[in-house]
Protein backbone atom coordinates (compact mmCIF):
# COMPACT_ATOMS: atom_id res chain seq x y z
CA UNK A 1 0.00 0.00 0.00
CA UNK A 2 1.18 3.49 -0.82
CA UNK A 3 1.22 5.82 2.18
CA UNK A 4 2.70 8.97 0.66
CA UNK A 5 2.28 10.00 -2.94
CA UNK A 6 3.95 13.26 -3.96
CA UNK A 7 3.40 14.48 -7.49
CA UNK A 8 5.11 17.50 -9.02
CA UNK A 9 5.44 19.26 -5.65
CA UNK A 10 6.59 22.84 -6.20
CA UNK A 11 7.10 25.59 -3.64
CA UNK A 12 8.25 29.12 -4.34
CA UNK A 13 9.32 31.95 -2.06
CA UNK A 14 9.08 35.19 -4.00
CA UNK A 15 10.54 34.33 -7.37
CA UNK A 16 12.80 31.59 -5.98
CA UNK A 17 11.62 28.05 -6.58
CA UNK A 18 12.94 26.11 -3.59
CA UNK A 19 11.15 22.83 -4.32
CA UNK A 20 10.83 22.13 -8.01
CA UNK A 21 8.61 19.35 -9.33
CA UNK A 22 9.39 16.74 -6.69
CA UNK A 23 7.63 13.38 -7.10
CA UNK A 24 8.01 10.18 -5.10
CA UNK A 25 5.98 7.56 -3.29
CA UNK A 26 6.54 5.88 0.07
CA UNK A 27 5.10 2.45 0.78
CA UNK A 28 3.56 1.35 4.05
CA UNK A 29 6.15 0.19 6.57
CA UNK A 30 9.00 1.76 4.64
CA UNK A 31 11.70 3.96 6.16
CA UNK A 32 12.24 6.60 3.52
CA UNK A 33 15.11 9.07 3.81
CA UNK A 34 15.66 12.47 2.25
CA UNK A 35 19.23 13.66 1.83
CA UNK A 36 20.44 16.98 0.54
CA UNK A 37 22.73 19.89 1.24
CA UNK A 38 21.67 22.81 3.42
CA UNK A 39 18.95 24.71 1.65
CA UNK A 40 18.19 21.88 -0.80
CA UNK A 41 14.49 22.01 0.13
CA UNK A 42 14.18 19.01 2.48
CA UNK A 43 12.36 20.79 5.29
CA UNK A 44 10.10 22.57 2.83
CA UNK A 45 9.22 19.22 1.24
CA UNK A 46 8.41 17.40 4.47
CA UNK A 47 6.50 20.38 5.87
CA UNK A 48 4.35 20.44 2.75
CA UNK A 49 3.69 16.72 3.24
CA UNK A 50 2.81 17.36 6.92
CA UNK A 51 0.30 20.00 5.85
CA UNK A 52 2.23 22.81 7.56
CA UNK A 53 3.02 24.64 4.32
CA UNK A 54 0.83 24.93 1.26
CA UNK A 55 2.44 23.92 -2.04
CA UNK A 56 2.29 26.26 -5.02
CA UNK A 57 1.82 23.36 -7.41
CA UNK A 58 1.59 19.60 -7.38
CA UNK A 59 -0.40 17.19 -5.30
CA UNK A 60 0.37 15.35 -2.07
CA UNK A 61 -1.67 12.44 -0.83
CA UNK A 62 -1.02 10.85 2.57
CA UNK A 63 -3.15 7.78 3.38
CA UNK A 64 -5.42 9.02 0.62
CA UNK A 65 -5.82 12.40 2.33
CA UNK A 66 -4.88 15.67 0.70
CA UNK A 67 -2.14 17.33 2.78
CA UNK A 68 -3.66 20.78 2.37
CA UNK A 69 -7.40 20.12 2.26
CA UNK A 70 -7.61 17.33 4.85
CA UNK A 71 -5.14 18.74 7.36
CA UNK A 72 -7.31 18.02 10.37
CA UNK A 73 -7.77 14.34 9.66
CA UNK A 74 -4.11 14.00 8.73
CA UNK A 75 -2.94 15.37 12.08
CA UNK A 76 -4.60 12.55 13.96
CA UNK A 77 -2.56 9.88 12.19
CA UNK A 78 0.84 11.46 11.63
CA UNK A 79 3.53 12.43 14.11
CA UNK A 80 5.91 15.22 13.16
CA UNK A 81 9.28 16.23 14.52
CA UNK A 82 10.15 19.72 13.33
CA UNK A 83 13.73 20.74 12.66
CA UNK A 84 13.36 23.90 14.70
CA UNK A 85 10.73 24.11 17.37
CA UNK A 86 10.91 24.68 21.09
CA UNK A 87 8.56 24.25 24.01
CA UNK A 88 7.57 26.60 26.80
CA UNK A 89 10.66 27.21 28.98
CA UNK A 90 9.05 26.21 32.26
CA UNK A 91 7.05 23.25 30.97
CA UNK A 92 8.39 20.06 32.53
CA UNK A 93 9.25 17.00 30.47
CA UNK A 94 6.56 14.82 32.03
CA UNK A 95 3.97 17.58 31.72
CA UNK A 96 4.74 18.02 28.04
CA UNK A 97 4.38 14.29 27.41
CA UNK A 98 1.07 14.06 29.29
CA UNK A 99 -0.29 17.18 27.65
CA UNK A 100 0.57 16.04 24.13
CA UNK A 101 -0.67 12.51 24.86
CA UNK A 102 -4.05 14.00 25.78
CA UNK A 103 -4.41 15.39 22.26
CA UNK A 104 -4.74 11.93 20.70
CA UNK A 105 -7.41 9.25 20.83
CA UNK A 106 -5.06 6.35 21.38
CA UNK A 107 -1.75 7.71 22.65
CA UNK A 108 1.37 5.70 23.44
CA UNK A 109 2.40 5.13 27.06
CA UNK A 110 4.31 8.34 27.75
CA UNK A 111 6.53 6.82 30.44
CA UNK A 112 7.61 4.00 28.14
CA UNK A 113 8.36 6.48 25.41
CA UNK A 114 10.39 8.67 27.76
CA UNK A 115 12.35 5.60 28.80
CA UNK A 116 12.93 4.69 25.16
CA UNK A 117 14.52 8.09 24.48
CA UNK A 118 16.41 8.00 27.79
CA UNK A 119 14.68 10.88 29.54
CA UNK A 120 13.20 9.08 32.54
CA UNK A 121 15.44 10.94 34.97
CA UNK A 122 14.52 14.30 33.45
CA UNK A 123 10.78 13.83 33.89
CA UNK A 124 10.48 16.79 36.29
CA UNK A 125 13.00 19.00 34.55
CA UNK A 126 11.77 22.20 32.87
CA UNK A 127 12.34 22.38 29.12
CA UNK A 128 14.78 25.30 29.37
CA UNK A 129 17.16 23.29 31.55
CA UNK A 130 17.48 20.36 29.12
CA UNK A 131 20.65 20.02 27.06
CA UNK A 132 20.39 20.35 23.30
CA UNK A 133 20.40 16.60 22.79
CA UNK A 134 17.82 16.09 25.52
CA UNK A 135 15.54 18.62 23.83
CA UNK A 136 15.96 16.70 20.60
CA UNK A 137 15.06 13.42 22.34
CA UNK A 138 11.94 15.00 23.81
CA UNK A 139 11.02 16.24 20.38
CA UNK A 140 11.31 12.68 19.00
CA UNK A 141 9.19 11.34 21.85
CA UNK A 142 6.52 13.99 21.24
CA UNK A 143 6.42 13.08 17.55
CA UNK A 144 5.66 9.48 18.50
CA UNK A 145 3.30 10.10 21.45
CA UNK A 146 0.13 9.85 19.34
CA UNK A 147 0.95 6.36 18.07
CA UNK A 148 1.16 7.73 14.53
CA UNK A 149 0.81 5.58 11.42
CA UNK A 150 3.33 7.84 9.71
CA UNK A 151 6.23 9.54 11.47
CA UNK A 152 7.83 12.51 9.71
CA UNK A 153 11.15 13.32 11.34
CA UNK A 154 13.20 16.33 10.22
CA UNK A 155 16.87 15.89 11.20
CA UNK A 156 16.15 12.96 13.46
CA UNK A 157 19.43 12.67 15.33
CA UNK A 158 21.04 16.09 14.93
CA UNK A 159 22.68 16.99 18.24
CA UNK A 160 22.52 13.49 19.73
CA UNK A 161 25.57 11.74 21.16
CA UNK A 162 26.62 8.46 19.52
CA UNK A 163 24.85 6.25 22.04
CA UNK A 164 21.63 8.25 21.84
CA UNK A 165 21.79 8.04 18.04
CA UNK A 166 22.02 4.25 18.16
CA UNK A 167 19.16 4.11 20.64
CA UNK A 168 17.08 6.36 18.43
CA UNK A 169 17.76 4.10 15.46
CA UNK A 170 16.58 1.16 17.55
CA UNK A 171 13.41 3.06 18.45
CA UNK A 172 12.75 3.84 14.78
CA UNK A 173 13.25 0.19 13.84
CA UNK A 174 10.84 -0.81 16.61
CA UNK A 175 8.08 1.43 15.35
CA UNK A 176 8.84 0.33 11.76
CA UNK A 177 8.41 -3.28 12.88
CA UNK A 178 4.97 -2.34 14.21
CA UNK A 179 4.05 -1.21 10.70
CA UNK A 180 4.64 2.52 11.11
CA UNK A 181 5.89 4.28 8.00
CA UNK A 182 8.81 6.66 8.54
CA UNK A 183 9.85 9.66 6.44
CA UNK A 184 13.06 11.14 7.73
CA UNK A 185 15.48 13.88 6.82
CA UNK A 186 19.10 13.40 7.75
CA UNK A 187 22.61 14.69 7.13
CA UNK A 188 24.22 11.52 8.46
CA UNK A 189 25.30 9.01 5.85
CA UNK A 190 25.58 6.13 8.30
CA UNK A 191 22.07 6.84 9.54
CA UNK A 192 20.70 6.95 6.00
CA UNK A 193 22.51 3.75 5.07
CA UNK A 194 21.57 1.73 8.13
CA UNK A 195 18.06 2.94 8.73
CA UNK A 196 16.52 3.78 5.36
CA UNK A 197 15.05 1.35 2.86
CA UNK A 198 15.19 3.97 0.14
CA UNK A 199 16.68 7.43 -0.20
CA UNK A 200 15.79 10.49 -2.23
CA UNK A 201 18.64 12.90 -2.83
CA UNK A 202 17.49 16.50 -3.24
CA UNK A 203 19.66 19.09 -4.91
CA UNK A 204 18.51 22.63 -5.60
CA UNK A 205 14.90 21.61 -4.97
CA UNK A 206 14.95 18.70 -7.43
CA UNK A 207 15.29 14.98 -6.85
CA UNK A 208 18.58 13.93 -8.45
CA UNK A 209 18.50 10.30 -7.33
CA UNK A 210 16.06 7.93 -5.69
CA UNK A 211 17.07 4.39 -4.84
CA UNK A 212 18.15 2.01 -2.11
CA UNK A 213 21.36 3.04 -0.34
CA UNK A 214 23.17 0.04 -1.86
CA UNK A 215 22.09 0.91 -5.39
CA UNK A 216 23.10 4.58 -4.95
CA UNK A 217 26.56 3.42 -3.85
CA UNK A 218 26.87 0.82 -6.61
CA UNK A 219 26.14 3.49 -9.23
CA UNK A 220 29.25 5.40 -8.28
CA UNK A 221 31.67 2.49 -8.55
CA UNK A 222 35.17 3.20 -7.27
CA UNK A 223 36.49 6.56 -6.14
CA UNK A 224 40.27 7.06 -6.16
CA UNK A 225 40.76 3.32 -6.24
CA UNK A 226 38.53 2.68 -3.19
CA UNK A 227 35.05 1.22 -3.12
CA UNK A 228 32.68 4.19 -2.89
CA UNK A 229 30.52 4.75 0.17
CA UNK A 230 27.23 6.63 0.53
CA UNK A 231 29.02 9.89 1.14
CA UNK A 232 30.89 9.53 -2.15
CA UNK A 233 27.60 8.84 -3.89
CA UNK A 234 26.00 11.87 -2.17
CA UNK A 235 28.88 14.18 -3.11
CA UNK A 236 28.84 12.95 -6.70
CA UNK A 237 25.12 13.59 -6.98
CA UNK A 238 24.85 17.02 -5.32
CA UNK A 239 26.36 20.46 -5.59
CA UNK A 240 26.32 20.45 -9.37
CA UNK A 241 24.89 23.96 -9.52
CA UNK A 242 27.57 25.41 -7.29
CA UNK A 243 29.10 28.67 -8.39
CA UNK A 244 32.57 27.83 -7.08
Amino acid sequence: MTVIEVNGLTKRYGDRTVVDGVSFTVAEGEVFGILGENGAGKTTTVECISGLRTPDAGSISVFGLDSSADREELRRIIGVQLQESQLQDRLRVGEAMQLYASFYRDPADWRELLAAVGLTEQVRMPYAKLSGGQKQRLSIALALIGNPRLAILDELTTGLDPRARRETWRLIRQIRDRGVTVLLVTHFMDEAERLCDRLAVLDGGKIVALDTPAALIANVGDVDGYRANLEDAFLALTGTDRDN
Partner: protein
Amino acid sequence: MSALTRLTGAEARLFLREPVSAFFALAFPAVLVIVLGNAIPAFSEPSPDFGGQRPINLYLPIVLALAIGTVTMTSLLSVLAQYRERGVLKRLATTPVKPSALIGAQLGVNVAALVAGSALMMLTAAVAFGSRGPENWPALLVAYLLGAGAMTGVALFIAAVTPNARASAGIGTLVYFPMLFFAGVWTPGDMMPDGAQRVADFTPLGAASQAMQAAWSGDWPQPLHLAVAAGYTLITGALAIRLFRWQ
Protein backbone atom coordinates in the same frame (compact mmCIF):
# COMPACT_ATOMS: atom_id res chain seq x y z
CA MET B 1 -11.57 17.16 29.45
CA SER B 2 -11.18 19.14 26.26
CA ALA B 3 -7.81 20.10 24.84
CA LEU B 4 -8.58 23.74 25.56
CA THR B 5 -9.17 22.97 29.25
CA ARG B 6 -5.95 20.99 29.49
CA LEU B 7 -3.96 23.67 27.71
CA THR B 8 -5.45 26.34 29.95
CA GLY B 9 -4.48 24.34 33.03
CA ALA B 10 -0.94 23.90 31.75
CA GLU B 11 -0.60 27.56 30.80
CA ALA B 12 -1.95 28.63 34.20
CA ARG B 13 0.76 26.60 35.90
CA LEU B 14 3.41 28.10 33.61
CA PHE B 15 2.06 31.58 34.34
CA LEU B 16 2.47 31.08 38.08
CA ARG B 17 6.01 29.76 37.56
CA GLU B 18 7.01 33.08 35.98
CA PRO B 19 7.39 35.17 39.15
CA VAL B 20 7.78 38.60 37.55
CA SER B 21 4.69 38.53 35.35
CA ALA B 22 2.69 36.74 38.04
CA PHE B 23 3.60 39.51 40.49
CA PHE B 24 2.68 42.30 38.09
CA ALA B 25 -0.64 40.72 37.21
CA LEU B 26 -1.74 39.50 40.62
CA ALA B 27 -0.14 41.67 43.28
CA PHE B 28 1.03 44.90 41.66
CA PRO B 29 -2.36 46.68 41.58
CA ALA B 30 -2.85 46.04 45.31
CA VAL B 31 0.73 47.06 46.12
CA LEU B 32 0.27 50.25 44.11
CA VAL B 33 -2.86 51.15 46.08
CA ILE B 34 -0.99 50.67 49.34
CA VAL B 35 1.87 52.88 48.09
CA LEU B 36 -0.50 55.59 46.87
CA GLY B 37 -2.53 55.43 50.04
CA ASN B 38 0.56 56.07 52.10
CA ALA B 39 2.03 58.71 49.79
CA ILE B 40 -1.08 60.85 49.38
CA PRO B 41 -2.17 62.54 52.60
CA ALA B 42 -5.79 61.97 53.55
CA PHE B 43 -6.27 59.42 50.79
CA SER B 44 -9.85 58.71 51.79
CA GLU B 45 -10.90 62.27 52.69
CA PRO B 46 -12.40 64.89 50.36
CA SER B 47 -9.50 67.09 49.29
CA PRO B 48 -9.36 70.56 47.77
CA ASP B 49 -6.31 69.39 45.78
CA PHE B 50 -8.58 66.91 43.99
CA GLY B 51 -11.53 69.23 43.33
CA GLY B 52 -13.18 68.33 46.59
CA GLN B 53 -13.23 64.62 45.77
CA ARG B 54 -11.71 61.75 47.71
CA PRO B 55 -8.36 60.93 46.07
CA ILE B 56 -9.00 57.23 46.53
CA ASN B 57 -12.09 57.39 44.33
CA LEU B 58 -10.11 59.06 41.57
CA TYR B 59 -7.25 56.64 41.74
CA LEU B 60 -8.89 53.22 42.03
CA PRO B 61 -10.49 53.17 38.55
CA ILE B 62 -7.20 54.40 37.12
CA VAL B 63 -5.36 51.58 38.85
CA LEU B 64 -7.83 49.19 37.22
CA ALA B 65 -6.97 50.68 33.84
CA LEU B 66 -3.27 50.33 34.65
CA ALA B 67 -3.82 46.68 35.57
CA ILE B 68 -5.51 46.08 32.22
CA GLY B 69 -2.69 47.80 30.35
CA THR B 70 0.03 45.93 32.22
CA VAL B 71 -1.35 42.43 31.73
CA THR B 72 -2.16 42.92 28.05
CA MET B 73 0.89 44.93 26.92
CA THR B 74 3.52 43.00 28.86
CA SER B 75 2.49 39.49 29.92
CA LEU B 76 0.04 38.51 27.15
CA LEU B 77 1.87 40.18 24.30
CA SER B 78 5.30 38.82 25.14
CA VAL B 79 4.05 35.25 25.54
CA LEU B 80 2.17 35.26 22.24
CA ALA B 81 5.13 36.65 20.33
CA GLN B 82 7.50 34.16 21.95
CA TYR B 83 5.28 31.18 21.30
CA ARG B 84 5.26 31.98 17.62
CA GLU B 85 8.96 32.82 17.36
CA ARG B 86 10.06 29.70 19.21
CA GLY B 87 7.85 27.38 17.19
CA VAL B 88 5.54 26.38 20.05
CA LEU B 89 2.52 27.25 17.91
CA LYS B 90 3.96 25.44 14.93
CA ARG B 91 4.59 22.30 16.92
CA LEU B 92 0.99 22.37 18.11
CA ALA B 93 -0.09 22.70 14.48
CA THR B 94 1.36 19.21 13.90
CA THR B 95 -1.10 17.72 16.44
CA PRO B 96 -4.90 17.38 16.29
CA VAL B 97 -5.13 20.48 18.49
CA LYS B 98 -5.15 23.82 16.69
CA PRO B 99 -2.58 26.43 17.72
CA SER B 100 -5.47 28.84 18.21
CA ALA B 101 -6.38 26.75 21.27
CA LEU B 102 -3.07 27.76 22.88
CA ILE B 103 -3.84 31.41 22.21
CA GLY B 104 -7.28 30.86 23.72
CA ALA B 105 -5.65 29.28 26.77
CA GLN B 106 -3.27 32.24 27.13
CA LEU B 107 -6.18 34.69 26.86
CA GLY B 108 -8.06 32.74 29.52
CA VAL B 109 -5.11 32.68 31.91
CA ASN B 110 -4.32 36.37 31.47
CA VAL B 111 -7.92 37.46 31.87
CA ALA B 112 -8.23 35.32 35.00
CA ALA B 113 -5.01 36.81 36.41
CA LEU B 114 -6.20 40.32 35.57
CA VAL B 115 -9.54 39.77 37.31
CA ALA B 116 -7.86 38.20 40.33
CA GLY B 117 -5.35 41.07 40.58
CA SER B 118 -8.14 43.64 40.24
CA ALA B 119 -10.27 41.92 42.87
CA LEU B 120 -7.32 41.76 45.26
CA MET B 121 -6.68 45.45 44.67
CA MET B 122 -10.28 46.38 45.47
CA LEU B 123 -10.26 44.20 48.54
CA THR B 124 -7.05 45.84 49.72
CA ALA B 125 -8.52 49.29 49.14
CA ALA B 126 -11.60 48.33 51.14
CA VAL B 127 -9.68 46.83 54.05
CA ALA B 128 -6.80 49.33 54.25
CA PHE B 129 -8.50 52.56 53.24
CA GLY B 130 -12.20 51.93 53.71
CA SER B 131 -13.03 52.13 50.00
CA ARG B 132 -16.71 51.44 49.36
CA GLY B 133 -16.04 50.37 45.77
CA PRO B 134 -17.76 51.77 42.70
CA GLU B 135 -21.13 53.48 43.08
CA ASN B 136 -22.34 51.96 39.83
CA TRP B 137 -21.25 48.33 39.66
CA PRO B 138 -22.94 47.32 36.38
CA ALA B 139 -21.43 50.29 34.57
CA LEU B 140 -18.02 49.53 36.06
CA LEU B 141 -18.16 45.93 34.91
CA VAL B 142 -19.16 46.93 31.39
CA ALA B 143 -16.40 49.53 31.18
CA TYR B 144 -13.83 47.14 32.66
CA LEU B 145 -14.71 44.32 30.26
CA LEU B 146 -14.70 46.62 27.26
CA GLY B 147 -11.35 48.05 28.35
CA ALA B 148 -9.88 44.58 28.80
CA GLY B 149 -11.31 43.52 25.44
CA ALA B 150 -9.91 46.58 23.68
CA MET B 151 -6.41 46.17 25.11
CA THR B 152 -6.45 42.42 24.45
CA GLY B 153 -7.36 43.21 20.85
CA VAL B 154 -4.48 45.69 20.65
CA ALA B 155 -2.09 43.06 22.08
CA LEU B 156 -3.23 40.44 19.56
CA PHE B 157 -2.95 42.99 16.77
CA ILE B 158 0.62 43.94 17.73
CA ALA B 159 1.55 40.25 17.97
CA ALA B 160 0.02 39.73 14.52
CA VAL B 161 1.82 42.52 12.70
CA THR B 162 5.28 42.42 14.29
CA PRO B 163 7.91 40.13 12.74
CA ASN B 164 9.44 38.81 15.97
CA ALA B 165 9.33 38.81 19.75
CA ARG B 166 11.78 41.70 20.08
CA ALA B 167 9.68 43.92 17.84
CA SER B 168 6.53 42.90 19.72
CA ALA B 169 8.07 43.80 23.05
CA GLY B 170 9.41 47.10 21.67
CA ILE B 171 6.09 48.18 20.22
CA GLY B 172 4.31 46.94 23.33
CA THR B 173 6.43 49.30 25.43
CA LEU B 174 5.88 52.17 22.99
CA VAL B 175 2.13 51.68 23.36
CA TYR B 176 2.12 50.89 27.09
CA PHE B 177 3.45 54.15 28.52
CA PRO B 178 1.33 56.55 26.42
CA MET B 179 -1.67 54.35 27.26
CA LEU B 180 -0.95 54.77 30.97
CA PHE B 181 -0.66 58.52 30.44
CA PHE B 182 -3.98 58.71 28.61
CA ALA B 183 -5.56 56.54 31.27
CA GLY B 184 -4.66 59.30 33.73
CA VAL B 185 -2.03 57.50 35.77
CA TRP B 186 0.00 60.72 36.15
CA THR B 187 -2.91 63.18 35.87
CA PRO B 188 -5.91 61.76 37.72
CA GLY B 189 -9.33 63.38 37.60
CA ASP B 190 -9.40 66.77 35.90
CA MET B 191 -5.65 67.26 35.98
CA MET B 192 -5.08 66.06 32.43
CA PRO B 193 -4.56 69.01 30.01
CA ASP B 194 -7.52 69.57 27.69
CA GLY B 195 -5.66 68.71 24.51
CA ALA B 196 -4.43 65.42 25.93
CA GLN B 197 -7.91 64.76 27.23
CA ARG B 198 -9.32 64.98 23.73
CA VAL B 199 -6.78 62.46 22.47
CA ALA B 200 -7.42 60.22 25.47
CA ASP B 201 -11.11 60.01 24.52
CA PHE B 202 -10.09 58.06 21.43
CA THR B 203 -7.46 55.73 22.92
CA PRO B 204 -8.63 52.32 24.15
CA LEU B 205 -7.29 52.63 27.67
CA GLY B 206 -8.07 56.36 27.97
CA ALA B 207 -11.69 55.75 27.01
CA ALA B 208 -11.99 52.73 29.31
CA SER B 209 -10.37 54.60 32.19
CA GLN B 210 -12.78 57.52 31.89
CA ALA B 211 -15.72 55.15 31.60
CA MET B 212 -14.58 53.39 34.78
CA GLN B 213 -14.05 56.72 36.57
CA ALA B 214 -17.60 57.75 35.69
CA ALA B 215 -18.96 54.41 36.91
CA TRP B 216 -16.95 54.70 40.10
CA SER B 217 -18.57 57.99 41.04
CA GLY B 218 -22.02 56.64 40.27
CA ASP B 219 -22.58 58.04 36.78
CA TRP B 220 -23.12 56.18 33.56
CA PRO B 221 -20.10 56.37 31.24
CA GLN B 222 -20.22 58.61 28.20
CA PRO B 223 -21.44 56.59 25.20
CA LEU B 224 -18.39 57.86 23.29
CA HIS B 225 -16.02 56.12 25.69
CA LEU B 226 -17.89 52.82 25.58
CA ALA B 227 -18.12 53.03 21.80
CA VAL B 228 -14.38 53.71 21.48
CA ALA B 229 -13.48 50.74 23.67
CA ALA B 230 -15.95 48.46 21.86
CA GLY B 231 -14.65 49.70 18.50
CA TYR B 232 -11.06 48.86 19.41
CA THR B 233 -12.14 45.44 20.64
CA LEU B 234 -13.89 44.60 17.37
CA ILE B 235 -11.47 46.18 14.92
CA THR B 236 -8.16 45.10 16.43
CA GLY B 237 -9.58 41.66 17.21
CA ALA B 238 -10.81 41.14 13.65
CA LEU B 239 -7.57 42.44 12.15
CA ALA B 240 -5.51 40.19 14.43
CA ILE B 241 -7.51 37.13 13.40
CA ARG B 242 -6.97 37.98 9.72
CA LEU B 243 -3.32 38.93 9.96
CA PHE B 244 -1.94 36.53 12.56
CA ARG B 245 0.90 34.31 11.31
CA TRP B 246 1.27 31.01 13.06
CA GLN B 247 4.97 30.55 12.26
